[in-house]
């Protein structure tokens, strides 16, 4: 027997008095499902993930990174959860270079350890998180604390979030260009998340960050950056579920601007497609474009070894401050082995070129840069 072609529209307003009387009984609808608001996790999660990263410029094999990491999430009763992660990364290969060709690139082999822990308390319509993080390298140590809060409206369709963080970094480069330098950063963010429909969730956020202290790269020649850098961001995230395909389109956009004079735009799309009960495939596309910092200097085109700069002027040859654009393509496959176990594999290819840029100008001769990274994870939920 075929189903009636006309499906009733549950989205229409049910404001009949009997319906309202039934809905006013507690316990008929599952605890209001989180649309915008966070609720305490019901399961613990342990996850191991490792990343292999390798980048290159034409004819040159450069940095390689191996990055194993652990993450844990533990519910502590009804209102509290503890989460934390530990990441260890080993960087090896030639040191980053600013020029398209330079002799005598030195080898690097560096280790970094970072860890963080967060305690979150969940109330009826709000949640509050406190976290601390530390990142340690032989020449760079960063300690930070942050707090965030989420408040949901009565209908749980709208939530506001605020977050604040502070970090204090110590810099002791091996080349002794500077000694015991510091960098302090304060950042804040505020946003609104709203369930637009049963299939659409939108988030708008604005962020601000201010850093002061030593912000230059001690390992780069002619790197002399202002000792204060303020930046602002605006971001938009939209998750849309396509019922007919069972798929979810996750999209995001971010605009960034700082007092170095850099503007950037980032757009990202992910298509989450369950292909069976156990398999989920997620292809992704990311585009990034930035303009150059005001004091960015292109490598000299006339073949002279060093750029001509007035004494004491701000300058940097760091190509990360140049105008460029970048595309990243990714594919992720998740395999839910059982109720408890799942595993995933994600691969990403990234290419940056000055010609890919949509905004900014300059740096036509900068060498293309590309990397690929592969992540493998396995997690246990209980």
């Amino acid at each position, binding site marked *: 027997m075929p189903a009636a072609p006309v499906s009733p529209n*549950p989205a229409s307003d049910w404001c009949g008095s009997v319906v309202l009387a039934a809905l006013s009984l507690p316990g008929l609808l599952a605890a*209001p*499902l*989180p*649309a915008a608001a966070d609720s305490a996790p019901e399961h613990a999660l342990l*996850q191991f*993930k490792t*990343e292999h*990263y390798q980048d290159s410029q034409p004819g040159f094999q450069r940095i390689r990174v191996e990055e194993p*990491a652990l*993450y844990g999430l533990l519910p502590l009763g009804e209102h509290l959860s503890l989460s934390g*992660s530990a990441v260890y990364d080993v960087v090896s290969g030639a040191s980053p270079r600013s020029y398209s060709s330079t002799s005598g690139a030195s080898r690097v082999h560096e280790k*970094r350890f*970072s860890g*963080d822990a967060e305690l979150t308390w969940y109330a009826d319509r709000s949640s509050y998180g406190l*976290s601390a993080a530390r*990142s340690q390298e032989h020449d*760079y140590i*960063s*300690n*930070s604390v*942050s707090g*965030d809060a989420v408040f949901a409206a009565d209908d*749980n*369709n709208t939530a506001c979030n605020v*977050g604040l*963080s502070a*970090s204090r970094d110590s810099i002791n480069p091996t080349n002794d260009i500077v000694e015991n330098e510091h960098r302090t950063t304060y950042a804040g963010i505020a946003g609104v998340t*709203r*369930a*637009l429909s*049963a299939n659409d*969730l939108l988030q708008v*956020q604005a*962020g601000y960050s201010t850093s002061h202290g030593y912000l230059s790269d001690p390992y780069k020649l002619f790197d002399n950056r202002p000792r204060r850098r303020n930046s602002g961001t*605006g971001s*938009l*995230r*939209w*998750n849309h*579920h396509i019922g007919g395909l069972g798929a*979810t389109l*996750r999209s995001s*956009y*971010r*605009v*960034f601007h700082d007092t*170095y004079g850099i503007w*950037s*735009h*980032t757009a990202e799309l992910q298509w*989450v497609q369950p292909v069976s009960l156990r398999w989920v495939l997620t292809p992704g596309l990311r585009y*990034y474009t930035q303009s150059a*910092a005001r004091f960015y200097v292109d490598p000299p085109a006339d073949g002279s070894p060093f750029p001509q700069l007035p004494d004491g002027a701000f300058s940097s040859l760091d190509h*990360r401050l140049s105008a460029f654009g*970048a595309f990243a393509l990714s594919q992720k496959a998740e395999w839910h082995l059982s109720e408890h176990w799942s595993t995933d594999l*994600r691969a*990403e290819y990234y290419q940056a070129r000055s010609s890919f840029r949509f905004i900014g100008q300059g740096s036509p001769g900068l060498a293309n840069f590309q990397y690929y*990274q592969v*992540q493998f994870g396995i997690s246990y939920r209980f």
Partner: protein
Amino acid sequence: MNRAWVVLITIAAGAAGSGCAMQAPKPWQKGVLAKPEMTMAGDMLELKFNDHTWTSKEASFGGFGVGGGGCGCN
């Protein structure tokens, strides 16, 4: 800079326009929104890895949250 504002305004207008045409869900219609892929959160380690990679290769950072601290890679 002009282009930046054009992009922003276009997206904001699109979002606002689509918001008007949609109807906020009732509590019993939130099954889809509760799916993990529909929440704003995600795989924590994947987010950490990607954020680390991108902030170390690009001049921009932040925008979707705070915390996590600094790194010598920037």
